[in-house]
């Protein structure tokens, strides 16, 4: 007789709740289903870089290629110099890819990782929907007031929004010479504690609205729908030690001593919806921060 083993799934009880504010005080269980897990969401990503792909790389071990778990994207050492390396005491004490800041002459000599698609180097651009996610931690001497953020670049022929979890990792949006109605000032004041892991999920929906969610699924920021800018993803410069800050970011680079460590980063080229995007933040946190999966 064959023995069949099945893995018990985490369960999710979906219920409808009304608190009485709309003439209805009710709570109804709608269904019991398998709970959403991280892989359910990430299977649809367009690129997905996981530190687990570099398993076996020793501390300070050079990384010349970081391959996406989906499709044929790779981040590859851009030159003949030293490659970026794995920090085994990275995000939440686990292994991460370390992107150094310019204060360390040894580390800053390392070359950035350039995005390749099927072996062809090039940036990743979209003018429509996307969801970007990153799990990161600053390796900083002090708390960081310069945040992973979306901000506008002032001046020049183009204005940009920039999302940067760390030096050299960014998304930037462009739109001619239009005035941008920018509403992220409070978010931009966030301080990020040193040696503390964070998750950020940036979502752009079909209307052009941008939302930012954190590791607890909370909404951190929203750009109003008047800002329907196109976006480029600066993966081609991931880990770069210069040029981005000066050329695109208006001098808002993180201070000296604030290298960033990343162990999951990727994006979807379509909107996955608010609920899934929020759940993605929570599930990434479960896996990499609270480790309760």
């Amino acid at each position, binding site marked *: 007789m064959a023995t069949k083993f099945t893995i018990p799934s985490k369960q999710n*009880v979906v*219920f409808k*709740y*009304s*608190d009485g504010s709309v003439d209805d005080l009710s709570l109804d269980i709608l269904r019991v289903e398998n709970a959403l897990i991280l892989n359910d969401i990430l299977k649809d990503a367009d690129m997905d870089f996981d530190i687990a792909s570099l398993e076996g790389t020793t501390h300070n071990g050079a990384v010349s290629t970081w391959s996406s778990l989906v499709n044929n994207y790779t981040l590859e050492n851009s030159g003949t110099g030293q490659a970026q390396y794995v920090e085994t005491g990275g995000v939440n004490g686990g292994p991460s890819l370390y992107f150094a800041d310019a204060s360390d002459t040894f580390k800053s000599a390392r070359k950035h990782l350039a995005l390749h698609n099927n072996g062809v180097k090039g940036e990743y651009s979209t003018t429509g929907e996307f969801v970007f996610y990153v799990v990161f931690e600053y390796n900083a001497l002090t708390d960081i007031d310069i945040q992973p953020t979306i901000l506008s670049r002032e001046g020049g022929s183009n204005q940009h929004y920039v999302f940067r979890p760390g030096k050299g990792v960014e998304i930037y949006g462009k739109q001619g010479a239009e005035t941008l109605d920018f509403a992220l000032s409070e978010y931009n004041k966030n301080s990020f504690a040193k040696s503390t892991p964070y998750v950020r999920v940036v979502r752009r929906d079909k209307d052009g609205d941008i939302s930012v*969610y954190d590791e607890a699924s909370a909404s951190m920021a929203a750009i109003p729908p008047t800002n329907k800018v196109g976006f480029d993803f600066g993966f081609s410069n991931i880990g770069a030690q210069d040029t981005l800050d000066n050329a695109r970011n208006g001098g808002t680079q993180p201070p000296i001593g604030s290298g960033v460590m990343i162990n999951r980063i990727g994006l979807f080229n379509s909107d996955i919806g*608010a609920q899934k995007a929020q759940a993605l933040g929570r599930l990434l946190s479960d896996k990499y921060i609270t480790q309760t999966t």
Partner: protein
Amino acid sequence: MATALNLDIAQELNITIRKGDTFSFDLTAQDKDGNGIDVSDYKFDMDIRDGSSNDRSAVVMSTTADVVEGEPIPLVTVNGLADGTITVRAVRTDSEKLNEGSYLYDIQATTANGATSQTWFYGSFIVNDDVSDFI
């Protein structure tokens, strides 16, 4: 003819776990349109108790740290998040302390200002015995 006024919205949800296993499940709160309700400001309390007594000493697992008869009560965590997810979880070292048997539980939700408290779920909580010990 009598008219009934029922303010009890609690729903019965019966739970079975295995002693010594980590248990974890989600409850997802949605509005009438199927959108997640932000429950991050709620405080959730869950007690699992021996049905034979209402005394605090009958509590076998709780979200509230407590000591009963000189022993800490095993803990379960219930956290509400912004996307409507309520995570319920206990680690195996705590579920290991439960005896095989049938218990009762409920989960109460209290608003951030403490003004409103409601029982959302209740039911049986059955612990199946295990064989292997975690070493």
